[in-house]
């Protein structure tokens, strides 16, 4: 990649709009080119300045009043400010940014030969990151467990437990096939507010052997559970307390079929 190509891509990179492969290309170039790295630095400081300065205008009350009258409803109470959508895309962007950095680290670390447990954790984080970056969170998008579960039929040699926990604050978003440890696994996607949770599931040949594990890896929390003959790995940027709530729901007797 030459500098001219990069100067344009740098913006898409900064906006979290590049796929993983091209993001890695950009990062590789930035490591070797001081001029482009300076551009990147300047761009980041510009964007951070734009974000922190109070540049957005809020609708004046008079406008809100007039617009509410369009509705021909009595303007009984003004809508709370909190109705305004949270600026989730920022979160995604920074998540994607950090995630790219994490992915680069993972790639960089691999040849050194980490312990098998570390390798798995890296793969899990990497799988989580990939799902967020490539716009490929789910292959089957549904909050209906009866849609998601049959979708895996014929795609996997095991039947993952699929359950919606919307009532407990963890709505099921969908499912997808992923590839971990040299095998196809199912990835169930849940949400907790704006946080995405990937739950990777695959069979274990030694049921009960795996101890529940909780760890933090490059800013992502990982929790494992063995339920029946299946390994469950939860990966998210969600805090460990809430993540373990979902793990407990999944591991709770009676929730598994």
């Amino acid at each position, binding site marked *: 990649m030459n500098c001219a190509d990069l100067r344009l891509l740098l913006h898409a990179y900064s906006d979290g709009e590049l796929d993983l492969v091209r993001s890695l290309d950009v990062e590789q170039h930035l490591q070797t080119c001081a001029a482009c790295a300076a551009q990147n630095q300047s761009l980041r400081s510009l964007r951070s300045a734009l974000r922190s300065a109070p*540049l957005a205008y809020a609708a004046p009350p008079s406008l809100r009043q007039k*617009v509410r009258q369009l509705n021909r409803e009595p303007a009984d109470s003004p809508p709370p400010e909190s109705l305004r959508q949270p600026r989730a895309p920022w979160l995604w962007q920074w998540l994607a940014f950090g995630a790219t950095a994490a992915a680069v680290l993972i790639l960089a670390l691999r040849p050194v030969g980490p312990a098998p447990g570390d390798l798995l954790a890296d793969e899990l984080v990497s799988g989580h990151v990939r799902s967020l970056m490539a716009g490929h969170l789910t292959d089957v998008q549904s909050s209906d467990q009866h849609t998601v579960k049959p979708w895996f039929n014929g795609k996997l040699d095991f039947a993952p437990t699929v359950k919606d926990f919307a009532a407990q604050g963890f709505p099921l978003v969908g499912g997808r096939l992923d590839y971990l440890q040299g095998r196809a696994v199912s990835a169930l996607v849940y949400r907790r507010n704006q946080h995405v949770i990937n739950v990777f599931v695959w069979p274990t040949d030694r049921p009960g052997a795996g101890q529940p594990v909780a760890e933090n890896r490059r800013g992502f929390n990982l929790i494992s559970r063995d339920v029946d003959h299946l390994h469950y790995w939860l990966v998210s940027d969600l805090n460990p307390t809430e993540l373990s709530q979902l793990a407990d729901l999944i591991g709770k007797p009676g929730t598994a079929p």
Partner: protein
Amino acid sequence: MGPSVSAPEPPAGFEQVVLPHLDAAYNLARWLAGNDHDAEDIAQEACARAWQFRGGYRGGDSRAWLLAIVRNTAYTWLKKNRSRIMVPLEDQEVAAVEDATASAPDFHNADAAMLRAAVEELPLEFREALVLRELEGLSYKEIADVAEVPLGTVMSRLARARRQLQIIFQRKGEVNP
């Protein structure tokens, strides 16, 4: 679990589709119009249109849908009232962008007033892309839908907008180191 049926049917969508995004609508109108009074007129008219054509809302991101209406309303308004500022973008795009000695100023000390003035200096389409991206957090796809241009154009407009801000601040830095 069916929806509650005891209350009278709420007006379809208005509370969800228009009102929650009123700040975003006004913000875009304000940045396009350049003053409070015109911005309020544009935002109000856009909301009225949104309400009138609410049947055209097909689900999806209601904010992007409303912003597209604000944008069209603003452009119609600007053409009617300030035709002189509607310079074809192509003329400006060439001039502004590629200076070989790329400046890379640091914005850490940029204050809000300076930033605001610099963004106001940007050509309309660049300003619009920048506001939608940086202040409203829209994705490239959403900006492309709002501005009715291809994704590649969104990327290049953002790049040029930011490039111009860099150049403006570089100049200011030279005057006021």
